[in-house]
Protein backbone atom coordinates (compact mmCIF):
# COMPACT_ATOMS: atom_id res chain seq x y z
CA UNK A 1 0.00 0.00 0.00
CA UNK A 2 1.15 3.54 -0.69
CA UNK A 3 2.72 5.36 2.19
CA UNK A 4 2.88 9.06 2.84
CA UNK A 5 4.20 11.28 5.61
CA UNK A 6 0.93 11.44 7.56
CA UNK A 7 0.48 7.69 7.51
CA UNK A 8 4.10 7.02 8.46
CA UNK A 9 3.80 9.34 11.44
CA UNK A 10 0.49 7.75 12.48
CA UNK A 11 1.91 4.24 12.33
CA UNK A 12 5.01 5.34 14.21
CA UNK A 13 2.93 6.89 17.00
CA UNK A 14 0.70 3.80 17.18
CA UNK A 15 3.84 1.72 17.48
CA UNK A 16 5.86 3.67 20.08
CA UNK A 17 3.07 5.25 22.10
CA UNK A 18 -0.34 3.57 21.71
CA UNK A 19 -3.26 5.27 23.51
CA UNK A 20 -3.34 2.60 26.24
CA UNK A 21 0.24 3.53 27.16
CA UNK A 22 -0.28 7.28 26.80
CA UNK A 23 -3.30 7.31 29.13
CA UNK A 24 -3.14 4.11 31.18
CA UNK A 25 -5.79 3.40 33.82
CA UNK A 26 -3.70 0.94 35.83
CA UNK A 27 -0.12 0.95 37.09
CA UNK A 28 2.22 -1.91 37.97
CA UNK A 29 1.91 -3.05 41.60
CA UNK A 30 5.31 -1.65 42.53
CA UNK A 31 4.12 1.92 41.83
CA UNK A 32 2.76 1.85 45.35
CA UNK A 33 4.55 4.68 47.11
CA UNK A 34 4.30 8.42 47.59
CA UNK A 35 7.79 8.64 46.08
CA UNK A 36 6.25 8.41 42.61
CA UNK A 37 4.21 11.57 43.22
CA UNK A 38 7.14 14.01 43.29
CA UNK A 39 7.14 14.39 39.49
CA UNK A 40 3.46 15.29 39.29
CA UNK A 41 3.80 17.64 42.28
CA UNK A 42 6.50 19.44 40.29
CA UNK A 43 4.08 19.66 37.34
CA UNK A 44 1.40 21.06 39.67
CA UNK A 45 3.78 23.75 40.92
CA UNK A 46 4.67 24.60 37.30
CA UNK A 47 1.00 25.01 36.38
CA UNK A 48 0.57 27.36 39.32
CA UNK A 49 3.68 29.27 38.27
CA UNK A 50 2.29 29.80 34.79
CA UNK A 51 -1.15 30.88 36.04
CA UNK A 52 0.22 33.41 38.56
CA UNK A 53 2.99 34.53 36.19
CA UNK A 54 0.46 35.26 33.45
CA UNK A 55 -1.54 37.42 35.85
CA UNK A 56 1.62 39.31 36.91
CA UNK A 57 2.57 39.89 33.25
CA UNK A 58 -0.91 41.18 32.39
CA UNK A 59 -1.08 43.76 35.19
CA UNK A 60 2.61 44.72 35.38
CA UNK A 61 5.13 45.83 38.01
CA UNK A 62 3.36 48.99 39.23
CA UNK A 63 0.48 46.71 40.16
CA UNK A 64 2.39 43.84 41.80
CA UNK A 65 4.56 46.24 43.84
CA UNK A 66 1.82 48.43 45.32
CA UNK A 67 -1.61 46.80 45.38
CA UNK A 68 -2.69 44.20 47.93
CA UNK A 69 -3.98 41.80 45.29
CA UNK A 70 -0.76 42.38 43.34
CA UNK A 71 1.29 41.44 46.40
CA UNK A 72 -0.83 38.33 46.79
CA UNK A 73 -0.18 37.10 43.26
CA UNK A 74 3.48 38.08 43.50
CA UNK A 75 3.75 35.97 46.66
CA UNK A 76 1.92 33.05 45.08
CA UNK A 77 4.36 33.18 42.15
CA UNK A 78 7.30 33.26 44.58
CA UNK A 79 6.06 30.37 46.73
CA UNK A 80 5.22 28.31 43.65
CA UNK A 81 8.88 28.61 42.68
CA UNK A 82 9.86 27.28 46.10
CA UNK A 83 7.47 24.33 45.71
CA UNK A 84 8.65 23.73 42.12
CA UNK A 85 12.32 23.38 43.08
CA UNK A 86 11.53 21.59 46.36
CA UNK A 87 9.62 18.82 44.58
CA UNK A 88 11.92 18.76 41.56
CA UNK A 89 14.88 17.98 43.81
CA UNK A 90 12.94 15.31 45.73
CA UNK A 91 11.93 13.87 42.32
CA UNK A 92 15.60 13.89 41.29
CA UNK A 93 16.62 12.09 44.51
CA UNK A 94 13.94 9.47 43.97
CA UNK A 95 14.94 8.85 40.34
CA UNK A 96 18.63 8.79 41.28
CA UNK A 97 18.14 6.29 44.12
CA UNK A 98 16.15 3.91 41.92
CA UNK A 99 18.57 4.47 39.00
CA UNK A 100 15.59 5.32 36.83
CA UNK A 101 17.78 5.62 33.73
CA UNK A 102 17.83 1.81 33.51
CA UNK A 103 16.15 -0.08 30.66
CA UNK A 104 16.68 2.48 27.92
CA UNK A 105 15.31 5.37 29.96
CA UNK A 106 18.46 7.49 29.64
CA UNK A 107 16.73 10.22 27.62
CA UNK A 108 14.15 10.66 30.37
CA UNK A 109 17.00 11.14 32.82
CA UNK A 110 18.99 13.47 30.54
CA UNK A 111 15.82 15.41 29.72
CA UNK A 112 15.22 15.76 33.44
CA UNK A 113 18.64 17.33 33.83
CA UNK A 114 17.92 19.73 30.97
CA UNK A 115 14.68 20.69 32.72
CA UNK A 116 16.64 21.31 35.91
CA UNK A 117 19.26 23.47 34.18
CA UNK A 118 16.75 25.52 32.18
CA UNK A 119 14.70 26.00 35.36
CA UNK A 120 17.72 27.48 37.14
CA UNK A 121 18.18 30.04 34.36
CA UNK A 122 14.43 30.74 34.47
CA UNK A 123 14.72 31.41 38.22
CA UNK A 124 17.71 33.73 37.70
CA UNK A 125 15.88 35.74 35.02
CA UNK A 126 12.88 35.83 37.36
CA UNK A 127 14.90 37.39 40.16
CA UNK A 128 16.21 39.89 37.59
CA UNK A 129 12.64 40.72 36.49
CA UNK A 130 11.36 41.84 39.88
CA UNK A 131 12.00 45.54 39.14
CA UNK A 132 13.24 46.31 42.66
CA UNK A 133 16.59 46.81 44.39
CA UNK A 134 17.10 43.07 44.87
CA UNK A 135 16.93 42.60 41.11
CA UNK A 136 19.34 45.48 40.55
CA UNK A 137 21.78 44.09 43.09
CA UNK A 138 21.65 40.58 41.61
CA UNK A 139 22.14 42.00 38.11
CA UNK A 140 25.13 44.12 39.04
CA UNK A 141 26.78 41.38 41.12
CA UNK A 142 25.98 38.60 38.68
CA UNK A 143 27.29 40.37 35.58
CA UNK A 144 30.86 39.76 36.75
CA UNK A 145 30.25 36.04 37.01
CA UNK A 146 28.70 36.06 33.54
CA UNK A 147 31.62 38.11 32.20
CA UNK A 148 34.08 35.62 33.63
CA UNK A 149 32.58 32.92 31.44
CA UNK A 150 32.34 35.13 28.36
CA UNK A 151 28.62 34.46 27.95
CA UNK A 152 27.85 38.09 28.83
CA UNK A 153 28.34 39.15 25.22
CA UNK A 154 25.14 37.34 24.41
CA UNK A 155 23.35 36.82 27.72
CA UNK A 156 23.57 40.28 29.30
CA UNK A 157 21.93 40.19 32.70
CA UNK A 158 21.93 44.00 32.90
CA UNK A 159 19.69 44.05 29.84
CA UNK A 160 16.27 44.09 31.49
CA UNK A 161 14.32 43.66 28.25
CA UNK A 162 16.29 40.54 27.36
CA UNK A 163 15.95 39.03 30.84
CA UNK A 164 12.23 39.78 31.07
CA UNK A 165 11.56 38.41 27.59
CA UNK A 166 13.47 35.24 28.39
CA UNK A 167 11.67 34.91 31.71
CA UNK A 168 8.09 35.34 30.59
CA UNK A 169 8.27 33.66 27.20
CA UNK A 170 11.34 31.83 25.95
CA UNK A 171 12.30 29.85 29.06
CA UNK A 172 8.76 28.83 30.10
CA UNK A 173 8.20 27.63 26.52
CA UNK A 174 11.45 25.66 26.62
CA UNK A 175 10.38 24.08 29.93
CA UNK A 176 6.95 23.17 28.58
CA UNK A 177 8.42 21.56 25.44
CA UNK A 178 11.04 19.64 27.44
CA UNK A 179 8.37 18.56 29.89
CA UNK A 180 6.11 17.21 27.14
CA UNK A 181 9.05 15.15 25.81
CA UNK A 182 9.91 14.02 29.39
CA UNK A 183 6.35 12.82 30.06
CA UNK A 184 5.97 11.15 26.65
CA UNK A 185 9.20 9.25 27.30
CA UNK A 186 7.92 8.14 30.71
CA UNK A 187 4.73 6.83 29.07
CA UNK A 188 6.65 5.14 26.24
CA UNK A 189 8.91 3.20 28.58
CA UNK A 190 6.54 2.60 31.49
CA UNK A 191 7.55 3.12 35.10
CA UNK A 192 11.00 1.76 35.86
CA UNK A 193 10.89 -1.62 37.64
CA UNK A 194 12.42 -1.98 41.12
CA UNK A 195 15.92 -3.41 41.53
CA UNK A 196 14.82 -6.58 43.26
CA UNK A 197 13.30 -8.84 40.57
CA UNK A 198 10.89 -8.81 37.67
CA UNK A 199 7.36 -9.26 38.96
CA UNK A 200 5.88 -12.59 38.01
CA UNK A 201 3.30 -12.59 35.27
CA UNK A 202 4.24 -9.19 33.92
CA UNK A 203 5.49 -9.87 30.42
CA UNK A 204 6.55 -6.36 29.62
CA UNK A 205 8.84 -6.29 32.62
CA UNK A 206 10.28 -9.71 31.93
CA UNK A 207 11.05 -8.64 28.35
CA UNK A 208 12.69 -5.49 29.55
CA UNK A 209 14.90 -7.34 31.98
CA UNK A 210 15.93 -9.82 29.30
CA UNK A 211 16.89 -7.02 26.98
CA UNK A 212 18.89 -4.99 29.40
CA UNK A 213 20.63 -7.30 31.81
Amino acid at each position, binding site marked *: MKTNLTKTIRLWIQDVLPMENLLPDTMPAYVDSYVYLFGILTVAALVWLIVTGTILAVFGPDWWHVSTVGHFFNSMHFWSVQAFF*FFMILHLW*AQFLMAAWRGGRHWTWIGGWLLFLVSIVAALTGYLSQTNFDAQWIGVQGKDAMNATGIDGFFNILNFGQMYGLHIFVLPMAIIVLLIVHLMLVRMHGVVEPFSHPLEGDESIAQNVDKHQ
Partner: protein
Amino acid sequence: MNGQLQPPIHAGWAWQYQWLNLSVADMIVVALMVIVFALALVLPFPREDNK
Protein backbone atom coordinates in the same frame (compact mmCIF):
# COMPACT_ATOMS: atom_id res chain seq x y z
CA MET B 1 33.10 48.32 55.47
CA ASN B 2 31.90 51.88 56.04
CA GLY B 3 30.70 53.59 52.92
CA GLN B 4 30.51 50.32 51.05
CA LEU B 5 27.33 49.22 49.33
CA GLN B 6 25.51 46.55 51.29
CA PRO B 7 23.35 43.90 49.63
CA PRO B 8 19.62 44.53 50.03
CA ILE B 9 19.11 40.81 50.67
CA HIS B 10 19.69 39.87 54.30
CA ALA B 11 19.84 36.13 54.68
CA GLY B 12 21.36 36.53 58.16
CA TRP B 13 23.91 34.21 59.71
CA ALA B 14 25.35 31.59 57.39
CA TRP B 15 27.46 28.51 57.90
CA GLN B 16 30.58 28.89 55.81
CA TYR B 17 32.90 26.15 54.58
CA GLN B 18 35.14 26.91 51.62
CA TRP B 19 32.77 27.84 48.76
CA LEU B 20 29.76 26.47 50.60
CA ASN B 21 27.51 29.07 52.20
CA LEU B 22 24.34 27.89 53.95
CA SER B 23 21.98 30.30 55.70
CA VAL B 24 19.61 29.13 58.42
CA ALA B 25 16.76 29.26 55.88
CA ASP B 26 18.82 27.04 53.53
CA MET B 27 19.37 24.48 56.27
CA ILE B 28 15.71 24.46 57.26
CA VAL B 29 14.70 23.80 53.65
CA VAL B 30 17.22 20.97 53.27
CA ALA B 31 16.01 19.43 56.56
CA LEU B 32 12.39 19.70 55.38
CA MET B 33 13.29 18.02 52.10
CA VAL B 34 14.96 15.12 53.88
CA ILE B 35 11.93 14.75 56.20
CA VAL B 36 9.38 14.84 53.36
CA PHE B 37 11.46 12.32 51.37
CA ALA B 38 11.72 9.96 54.35
CA LEU B 39 7.98 10.23 55.00
CA ALA B 40 7.22 9.48 51.34
CA LEU B 41 9.33 6.33 51.66
CA VAL B 42 7.85 4.98 54.88
CA LEU B 43 4.20 6.07 54.86
CA PRO B 44 1.97 3.33 53.43
CA PHE B 45 0.31 4.37 50.18
CA PRO B 46 -3.48 4.00 50.36
CA ARG B 47 -4.76 1.52 47.81
CA GLU B 48 -8.12 0.26 46.72
CA ASP B 49 -8.92 -3.34 47.41
CA ASN B 50 -9.92 -4.52 43.97
CA LYS B 51 -9.52 -8.21 43.62
